[in-house]
């Protein structure tokens, strides 16, 4: 493969939740690969900082405050990018709620705790896809990357809205593929495992010991996957889920990573 297939020069990307964590890392990664990047999120300050960093690499950038749980605001946000840049080539639906969750029994979980997660993680992604879909269909090309999670495939105790919304993202991805492939639009899903994206946490060594590779992921380790999936190198890839989790979901079968030795002679 020639490396220029990974080049994103001239492509225009929108990344929701682009001000921090994985969204920020993907914004910087895509811009390093040549893309112009519009970052969208709730808080303006981190968006401006990321936009500045993208511009410092010689790429165009937009910092757009928008609440993705509101369809009109999502439509306005996409319309702004279309007006400013004339098109959107890449949409990364990254915005999501992870931390606004406190473990508690199901019967104490409020409607709002459920809805806020479903609205942001699942409906928000749907609104963004819908907002760019007509434009991408008319141009006959486009690339959408949805962020799911390892917890979109497995359960986590008392984390209802997160696990359910992230599982929804996976099948939304497949359904979009069935619906939009005929228009030249590719849709894929990145499912990260545990990444060091929580501002309050400095030391991840405790969590790391439960992951086969022995550590949590660095946000920059997602950026490469996003660049690859957004690039022409991935032109035939659509409707798929890509896990990046340090081996976590290869296991989940035992409390230990390996079985105690059980030689053949002992079982025959």
């Amino acid at each position, binding site marked *: 493969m020639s490396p220029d297939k990974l080049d994103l020069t001239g492509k225009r990307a929108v990344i929701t939740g682009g001000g921090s964590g994985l969204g920020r890392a993907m914004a910087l990664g895509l811009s390093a690969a040549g893309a112009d990047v519009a970052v969208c999120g709730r808080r303006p300050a981190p968006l401006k900082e990321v936009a500045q960093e993208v511009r410092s690499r010689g790429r165009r950038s937009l910092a757009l405050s928008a609440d993705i749980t509101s369809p009109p605001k999502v439509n306005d946000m996409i319309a702004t990018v279309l007006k400013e840049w004339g098109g959107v080539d890449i949409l990364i639906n990254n915005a999501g709620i992870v931390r606004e969750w406190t473990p508690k029994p199901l019967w104490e979980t409020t409607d709002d705790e459920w809805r806020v997660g479903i609205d942001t993680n699942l409906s928000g992604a749907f609104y963004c896809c819908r907002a760019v879909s007509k434009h991408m269909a008319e141009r006959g090309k486009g690339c959408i990357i949805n962020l799911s999670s390892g917890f979109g495939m497995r359960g986590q105790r008392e984390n209802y809205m997160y696990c359910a919304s992230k599982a929804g993202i996976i099948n939304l991805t497949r359904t979009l593929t069935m619906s939009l492939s005929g228009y030249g639009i590719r849709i894929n899903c990145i499912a990260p495992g545990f990444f060091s994206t929580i501002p309050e946490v400095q030391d991840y060594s405790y969590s790391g010991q439960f992951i086969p590779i022995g550590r949590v992921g660095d946000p920059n380790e997602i950026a490469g996957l996003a660049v690859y999936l957004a690039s022409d190198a991935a032109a035939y890839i659509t409707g798929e889920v890509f896990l990046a989790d340090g081996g976590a979901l290869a296991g*989940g079968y035992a*409390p*230990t990573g*390996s*079985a105690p030795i059980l030689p053949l002679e002992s079982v*025959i």
Partner: protein
Amino acid sequence: MREEVLSLDGKRALVTGGLHPWGKPVAEALAEAGAKVLLATLPAPTTRKVAGKLSGAALPTRPSPTQVRRTVTRAVAGGGIDILVNCYDTPMASPLLDTHQAAWRWIVNANLDPVFLWCREVGGHMLANGGGRIINLASGLGERGLGNCTAYCAAMAGVISFTRSLGLEWAGKSVAVNAMAPCWFEDTPLAEAMPKERLARFIPAKRLGKIEEVGAMAAFLASDAASYITGQTYFLSGGVMAHA
């Protein structure tokens, strides 16, 4: 659902593989549901004892092509085979670098090859006689990975994939092919080798499975209640398969 739907009255079930741990509870559950059980399990002496207790027949069989053919011919001559349950399960845990090719071959041969042999031999008879049910014993490790278990995991993944493919091949021909995949069960070698309390804490159901629970699933999958199910692998995991 009417109870008769779960009844295996008048059915003849061939159970193959190891009597321990799975063959015996499977045979007991099928017999309890009304089936006549033909035990092609090993070892031979205990197979005879269990067959006697269940008013079944003992046909202890090594899974070689000739022995399998001979046993199936005898079972068919005695009144046919409606249900086949393959209970082959030989685990091994050894680091890959210490695993000789002979051990690899042994494990694949012990877990996967007999499934092929019995399905081919009994399936031909079922297809010619209007249908039947085949149930293969797989493992949660056919779906999940575990260090030191490369050979066993690969073999059991083979059973799951074989089941899916054969289920499709015979889907329109009234032969249903499914698998049941137990995870951590009492009195099985891999579970015995694990740190007990840690394992029980890890399993969402907070206990290991009981072998008779596998027998119950076999009886269900063999019954008319499961008439639309084919190509599937059903896990008995106490929630482990939901675990991250």
